[in-house]
């Protein structure tokens, strides 16, 4: 598939915001209560990031002015469900933020925020899982990875924010969780990459055309200069470029952030390491999401192999 920048931005930025909200909500519920200032800034940051994600998803549409129509088919469409759950999540986080501003203290809103964050990851991932013939996506690992990667980058962001606001002890305890989440996310993303590498496509040119000959090649795709089919479903990057993206996925997305988090833990969380870990990981996770789309081999590509 051709990775769309709008979807990459939306899923990574919203995913980190969901993870940030979950981390703050868990801290609040477990009584590891950070200061009011951290909760206030953290939730405000999450709201800002969610609005950025929402904006990016609007820009993915050919007719953004009709986006409201996308809530109609929630009975059958995971995309429709996501379109409902994303604003609902923004609403819950906004309510929680407002209630904290008003001096309120309730465990209902953080609990609800965690539940809706998980629901949003489920909706986002199921959009891909439910396309059964994109075998790279049609697996429970897609849900696991969207959730774990969001949790990891959100936890790193929470730690970075805490250290920037001078909450060093809290930053240290969150850093342990962020490190654990990052390593777990890395392990399961690696399992998914292995699975993808071993996949045997169910469709081939013979099943696509019904021509039974064992030797079958396309001589012409029926047009000379491409179409929607050649633009939307091929990433067009060289094998070397894909290798570099895969290196960025492992190195920037997981390895380097994990080392930075470990360094932060051993050096008492100095100011610079945790924000740096977040920035490095954010870049690596763009690569991760790009590869998620680029690796998906759509069966329609069988019909678009040869120009002549």
């Amino acid at each position, binding site marked *: *598939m051709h990775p769309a920048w709008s979807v990459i931005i939306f899923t990574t930025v919203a995913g980190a915001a969901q993870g940030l909200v979950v981390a703050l909500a868990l801290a609040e519920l477990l009584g590891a209560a950070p200061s009011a200032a951290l909760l206030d800034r953290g939730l405000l940051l999450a709201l800002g990031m969610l609005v950025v994600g929402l904006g990016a998803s609007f820009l*993915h*549409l*050919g*007719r*953004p002015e*009709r*986006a409201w*129509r*996308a*809530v*109609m*088919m929630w009975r*059958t*469409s*995971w*995309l*429709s469900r996501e*379109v409902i759950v994303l604003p609902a999540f923004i609403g819950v986080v906004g309510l929680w933020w407002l209630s904290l501003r008003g001096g309120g203290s309730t465990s209902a809103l953080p609990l609800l925020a965690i539940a809706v964050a998980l629901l949003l990851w489920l909706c986002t991932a199921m*959009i891909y899982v*439910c*396309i*059964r*013939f*994109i075998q790279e996506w049609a697996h429970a690992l897609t849900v696991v990875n969207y959730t774990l990667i969001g949790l990891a980058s959100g936890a790193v962001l929470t730690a970075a924010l805490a250290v920037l606001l001078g909450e060093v002890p809290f930053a240290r305890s969150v850093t342990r969780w962020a490190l654990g989440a990052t390593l777990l996310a890395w392990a399961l993303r690696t399992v998914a990459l292995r699975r993808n590498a071993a996949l045997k496509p*169910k*469709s081939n*040119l013979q*099943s*696509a*055309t*019904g*021509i*039974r*000959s064992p*030797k*079958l*090649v*396309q*001589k*012409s*795709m*029926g*047009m*000379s*200069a*491409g*179409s*929607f*089919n050649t633009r*939307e*479903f091929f990433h067009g990057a060289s094998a070397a470029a894909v290798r570099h993206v895969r290196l960025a996925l492992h190195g920037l997305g997981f390895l380097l952030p994990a080392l930075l988090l470990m360094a932060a833990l051993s050096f008492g969380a100095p100011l610079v390491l945790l924000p740096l870990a977040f920035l490095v990981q954010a870049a690596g996770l763009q690569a991760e999401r790009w590869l998620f789309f680029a690796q998906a081999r*759509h*069966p*329609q*590509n069988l*019909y*678009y192999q040869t120009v*002549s």
Partner: protein
Amino acid sequence: MAEAQPETLAKQLALVIDLNVCVGCHACVTSCKEWNTGGAAGPMSDQNAYGAGPTGTFFNRVQTYEAGSYPETETIHFPKSCLHCEDPPCVPVCPTGASYKRKEDGIVLVDYDKCIGCKYCAWACPYGARELDEERQVMTKCTLCVDRIYDELLPPADRKPACVMACPTGARLFGDVKDPHSEVSVAIRERGGYALMPEWQTQPANQYLPRKVTAAVGE
């Protein structure tokens, strides 16, 4: 999460493509574009139409394949358009309901006024049968010439899709595959009609008639 079982419709209009006689002339491609760009499904825009890399919206394409090894090769021209699946995976994923399958005749259509151009339906079609119109930014696809086949102003013999009317070799048959006595049902039954990518259980309504190997004269 349980998807509703596909309803079995009483009528399902479809095309049957005879690979024995398609000569790859692309008359169905151009007649489709001509009819539909000026009809209810149009306009089908082109970009860079007179430049070096012309591209545009088409509902129907003719591709060419070569089977076997030289000198025992066969050239097969292969028309490809929406298959109007009985269980179309493109329909349930549409978030707005713009993509739908008509109960009365099984045609899969897009309501352009509801389409938001998210392209999710195209991702959910294993055949690549849908094309986003770059100018209108809505998803488009074969309509089986729904604005033609029911037009009572046309003589009954002309109430067929434009591609079927244009085919000089009669490679395209049109009719109701649920009527066992229709031309298409008889052709599928008697000539080994098959569906594309049966492995995904989309139950395409359109089917293809395989090539018959005929012995050369004198053999």
